[in-house]
């Protein structure tokens, strides 16, 4: 089977890097549905660039497990979506193929790094998309674009074929306009794959009851604290209020480890990235330069030319964090902080069933607005805790601020993906969509 493509045509928001019309046909749970696939998920015969120049000319000889699964269920592939290079960003501005625009307001970013997937869904180009979430990369663009996006529990979806950015944090997950569609896609992509040793065989059983009577919701103060746009916080509180009206009760709680979450996240992800991205050396794939020169020089040239600025920055940060003499101070400490975050969640989950708060501290910002990398990193503060702890988290639209979508984030206990989707579904139904 070969991809029919490349397909050109309207892509007003620059959601795609490669467009195609791969329609294998066939029956199944996704029969006839065209799915957009983030460009860091390997597709046999379709270029997979991760938004990077360094992978120019690379076409994987194999499919990611999730791609095999959706094809087996009759889905087609509409193309490969734009993203921050290797997933490193929260706006889809860090792509070698230009920024993606937010369909809700084209002067604004769609969020990232799965911005192309979210924009393609929000613009109605496809009903569903696959993204990946390392520190919020599915939930952030889902919130900014006004759609639903799930970061599954760690180990619930095979990462086989996902080009690694930070292995211990990331998961592939579904994006769609409704919780029901997200749930359907999740049911398909969560099937077991022995090739991913961090995955367990835990079938996903969709359970959309919309029933929240007696549900205990934790709303940690830290999720509504400094840095969170009050209007966004207000929107989210109203959304939680709606769940209360349906019979849920809100339990006040706090999460002190939030203070270290962002630092723990960035040390961990940059460390892993510095190692994961070492393979891009021009020897086996990518830019077919003549590399018949001392290999130090060849590697340096290929990597200097191929990687964008943010990727180079994170590789350097991670290399430093893992260096002899600094490992204990950074990487080891980050892992300790990470355990604290997990412990905090475990403690809170003794008293509540789910935790709710905003997905992002603000609504979508303007393209080019955040020039300082630190301010960009800060926008991940509410999404990274779920990745550090490996718990499921969904973003579901909950109204607008200044005409721009706001996302309600619902986090659950490890492996309770079904529950967070059910709560999101209850909200979605209650909000009268």
């Amino acid at each position, binding site marked *: 089977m070969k991809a029919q493509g490349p397909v050109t045509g309207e892509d007003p928001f620059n959601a795609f890097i490669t467009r195609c019309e791969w329609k294998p046909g066939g029956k199944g749970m996704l029969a006839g549905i065209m799915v957009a696939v983030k460009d860091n998920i390997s597709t046999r015969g379709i270029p997979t660039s991760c938004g990077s120049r360094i992978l120019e000319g690379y076409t994987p000889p*194999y499919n990611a497990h999730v791609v095999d699964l959706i094809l087996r269920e009759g889905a087609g592939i509409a193309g490969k979506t734009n993203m921050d290079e290797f997933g490193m960003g929260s706006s889809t501005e860090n792509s070698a193929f230009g920024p993606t625009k937010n369909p809700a307001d084209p002067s604004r970013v769609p969020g990232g790094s799965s911005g192309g997937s979210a924009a393609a869904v929000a613009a109605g180009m496809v009903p569903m998309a696959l993204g990946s979430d390392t520190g919020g990369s599915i939930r952030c663009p889902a919130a900014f674009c006004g759609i639903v996006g799930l970061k599954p529990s760690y180990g619930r979806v095979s990462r086989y074929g996902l080009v690694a950015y930070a292995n211990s944090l990331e998961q592939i997950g579904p994006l769609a306009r409704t919780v029901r569609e997200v749930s359907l896609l999740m049911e398909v992509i969560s099937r077991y794959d022995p090739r991913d040793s961090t995955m367990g065989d835990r079938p996903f059983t969709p359970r959309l009851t919309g029933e929240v009577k007696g549900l205990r919701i934790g709303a940690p103060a830290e999720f509504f604290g400094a840095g969170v746009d009050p209007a966004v916080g207000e929107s989210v509180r109203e959304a939680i209020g709606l769940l209360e009206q349906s019979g849920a009760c809100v339990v006040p709680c706090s999460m002190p480890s939030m203070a270290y979450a962002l630092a723990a996240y960035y040390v961990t992800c940059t460390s892993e990235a510095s190692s994961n991205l070492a393979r891009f*050396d021009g020897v086996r794939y990518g830019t077919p330069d003549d590399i018949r020169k001392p290999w130090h020089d060849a590697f340096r040239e290929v990597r200097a030319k191929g990687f964008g600025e943010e990727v180079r920055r994170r590789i350097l940060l991670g290399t430093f964090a*893992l260096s002899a003499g600094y490992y204990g101070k950074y990487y080891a400490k980050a892992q300790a902080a990470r355990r604290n975050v997990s412990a905090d969640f475990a403690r809170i989950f003794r008293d509540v069933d789910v935790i709710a708060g905003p997905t992002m501290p603000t609504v979508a910002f303007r393209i080019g607005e955040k020039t300082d990398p630190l301010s960009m990193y800060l926008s991940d503060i509410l999404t990274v805790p779920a990745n550090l702890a490996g718990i499921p988290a969904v973003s579901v639209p909950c109204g607008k601020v200044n005409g721009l979508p706001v996302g309600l984030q619902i986090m659950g206990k490890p492996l309770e993906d079904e529950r967070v989707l059910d709560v999101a579904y209850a909200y979605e139904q209650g909000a009268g969509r």
Partner: protein
Amino acid sequence: MTVIIGLEIHCQLTTRTKLFCGCSTDYRNDPPNTHTCPICLGLPGTLPCLNRKAVEYALRVAKALNCTVLEEAEFARKNYFYPDLPKGFQITMYDRPLAVDGHLEIEADNGTEKRIRITRVHMEEDPGRLVHVGSGDRPRYSLVDYNRSGIPLIEIVTDPDLRSPKEARRFINTLRTTLEYLGVFDGDREGGLRVDANISMERGSRVEVKNISSYKGVEKALTFEITRQRNVIRRGLSVERETRHFLEARGVTTSARSKEEEHDYRYFPEPDLRPLRVREWCDAIVLPELPAARRVRFADSFGVSPSHARTLCGDLKLADFFEEVVVCGDPILAATWVADTLLGEVYYRDMEIARVPAGHFVELLRLLKKKEITDKGGVEVLRAILDQSARGEVPETPATIVARLNLGKAAGDAFGPVIREVVESCPAAVQDFRNGKPEALNYLVGQAMKRTRGRADPKELARMIREAIGGSGVTG
């Protein structure tokens, strides 16, 4: 000046498939890059999937080396750039290896048993291999072959307990034998064993010699390095702490003071693999009989001499062969013929024991036991069998060879004419013997042996000659 040597030994495990993918490990006779897949090529998005058989093999080694197996072992990434390393890191084990604190008994230089302590045992993946195109020291470019990429390796690190190159060599040989007994290693595979040696003179700096890839190389490299270090000290200089490479072809070590040697490997736990619970796993493993136990058994149940037992058990295939041919009914005869005669003939031909037809050998031993042929005749039969086998022919049976070469020990009177001939042609020797010089008889027997082309039993010939020339009263 005391020499202090510690070894780091990498051995390829003989699993059917690679450590993290399903590619076959049997690549040696195949073209480059034909035993590869997205995983062992490190293509983006692939994940390692652990070969549990390899872990089982490695645990056998840890157990046989009397190690303490850790509750949990953990894979880690060793980060460095090199063109033969497809992922830009090697998956290995770092601060949580499989096992620590073991030991292996070897024969020391003075012939006694010596205990060499094992620091640690861990697993890792082999990188690919570079093939340099162009001449000598200045290749034009290099090609990469990933067939070797992902082959399971076990790394065994010793304490600095070895005191001479010979001892180091003996350690490696003993280790090789042990690994072969465990069924996890094949010492005949080219490049299957690689050694790094740490060597220093007492109170001197430690020098690491890398890149030793043969059994003989270990002794050669260490001998060279000791001479070099002694010369440095003799000139009043101090040995520099450094890494050196062994150049097998030239038998020398050279300093490797290039940038790529100054590594900070930035180890961290491999996030794509879970920690391994190895203690319980190892407890459940039952080891096969090891060389020491087999030596004892050969001595106890077959009456084989200690030195023959050591020779036989020092090579798994030889010991197995011995057990196959011991059915001849005379274990001591079998031990002598396998450990002394056969081994020499096989070395001479650079032949594998496995190619010696055991059935033929048993028949040969039976002929010897029944004294139907002499020892000398037996050697001729054996040589004929080995030569035919080496040529790839189906060898003739010993009986056929005996008949063809007329090696059968003839009945006494068949030699009558020969005896008469000898007695008549050597009157001086006959006279000497009669005059009471017994050694003259040896000369006459020798002459007779020559004329019978070894078919006769020398003792029988001596008796007959004495009879023929009449006794001097001197007993032979």
